[in-house]
């Protein structure tokens, strides 16, 4: 049971709290406009929208391609305060919204603070040097891997489209049509089907993995004989990427990589 003195103390405390809240948060605790928001960017968005109305026109700038927004960790580092994921996502949304509005150099500068440049051309492709053999024929060598197969391909600059794998013709080494199609893929893509001779060695893996390894090796070796644009086309067609997929390991407590043991009720 509270004494009258304690009651008076409690009431004073409540009044004291209310006065503090009224002082610190003049619009009250639950006022929407009083919530803490990313004032800078949001203020700019409101400003630009008010200046030109809610209808937005797309203005794409070329600078955007070579850079990306900062990731959450980098932003935390920059602002020296912890961010929650929702805050970060909201912030990026606001910045994207800002992009769609007509912005001037001041806003541009604001946005550049939150952008980091990324490798503009993702073609860090190592172009093999062209070598010459005893007869003076130009060729280039390259390696390729797929699953556990490794291949080395020697592509000659001038030839008639013959492909020899481990000493035998590719028609004999790969009886399956799909594998031969894979070997022809880089040449067919660049319209150079009967213009190059290829000699390659391959070991390990299965029949499809060997074909994939040779395809990668040939595509890389071809890079020495073609233009930069064509290299970029090959990269975008997926011919110059090593396939990282390998056999998934078996896990303990399961029969295979994914298959579980038969469930028994008892």
């Amino acid at each position: 049971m509270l004494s009258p003195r304690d009651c008076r103390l409690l009431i004073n405390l409540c009044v004291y709290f209310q006065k503090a809240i009224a002082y610190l948060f003049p619009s009250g605790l639950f006022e929407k406009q009083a919530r803490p928001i990313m004032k800078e960017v949001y203020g700019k968005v409101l400003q630009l929208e008010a200046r030109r109305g809610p209808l937005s026109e797309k203005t794409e700038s070329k600078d955007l391609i070579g850079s990306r927004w900062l990731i959450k960790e980098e932003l935390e580092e920059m602002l020296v305060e912890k961010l929650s994921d929702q805050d970060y996502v909201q912030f990026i949304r606001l910045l994207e919204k800002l992009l769609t509005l007509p912005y001037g150099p001041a806003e541009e500068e604001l946005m550049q603070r939150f952008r980091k440049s990324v490798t503009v051309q993702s073609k860090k492709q190592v172009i093999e040097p062209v070598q010459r053999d005893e007869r003076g024929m130009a060729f280039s060598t390259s390696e390729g891997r797929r699953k556990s197969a490794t291949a080395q391909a020697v592509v000659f600059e001038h030839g008639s489209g013959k492909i020899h794998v481990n000493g035998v013709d590719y028609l004999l080494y790969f009886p399956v049509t799909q594998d031969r199609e894979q070997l022809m893929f880089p040449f067919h893509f660049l319209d150079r089907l009967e213009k190059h001779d290829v000699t390659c060695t391959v070991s390990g893996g299965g029949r499809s993995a060997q074909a994939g390894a040779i395809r990668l090796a040939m595509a890389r070796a071809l890079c020495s004989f073609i233009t930069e644009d064509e290299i970029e086309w090959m990269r975008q067609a997926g011919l110059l990427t090593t396939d990282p997929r390998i056999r998934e390991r078996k896990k303990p407590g399961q029969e295979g990589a994914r298959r579980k043991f038969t469930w028994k009720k008892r």
Partner: protein
Amino acid sequence: MAAPALQAARRLSGLTLGVRLAVWNFPGITQVRWSRYAPEYRDPLIDKEYYRKPVSELTEEEKYDQELKKTQLIKAAAATETSSVFADPVISKFTNMMMKGGNKVLARSLMAQTLEAVKRKQFEKYHAASAEEQATIERNPYRIFHQALKNCEPVIGLVPILKGGHFYQVPVPLTDRRRRFLAMKWMITECRENKPRRTLMPEKLSDELLEAFHNRGPVIKRKHNMHKMAEANRALAHYRWW
């Protein structure tokens, strides 16, 4: 369950260039669907014409897309895709669905024999027909295949929904992918199960494709059955909440 939320989060982080979903936001749920590729890798595009287009013919959007693609990492092309004119994604998908035990060689040869059988039958009909009919007979097996599968696609499907302890078959709209899948699945099941003894798959499949092309046959009947059941269960449509 968490998949749509995760996909939404992925799309958001996909707005930004190459930014990974750094924190796994769903405690109590472990990620099972993962891939050896990092999430920023994009699918390759194997279309010679797309790359050979001269710069003057590109629209602003296409130019922007091209510039954007230069900064993106691309996955390796699959072992089944080529830039050949004979490569058809629908045919590849159908071949994979026909495949048993990983025997791609057999599945591919069956597919080739089927298309050959279709062509032979159409040519026989062509040579036996009169001049006016010859104009209406379709002899391209690829066109027959595509049209047949399109004719077999259902428009609406049924989904079992648990309500009050009972499973009700509720009519539900199907996505394009699901429709194509159902058409192919029905075709293959039909050819495997309702085959008279001693007929081989190519022969049966070519017959079914030609019948489906002319909008008759068991697969079309199954599609109509599905539509009728959906119509019959119309009253349960409000059980759907999406």
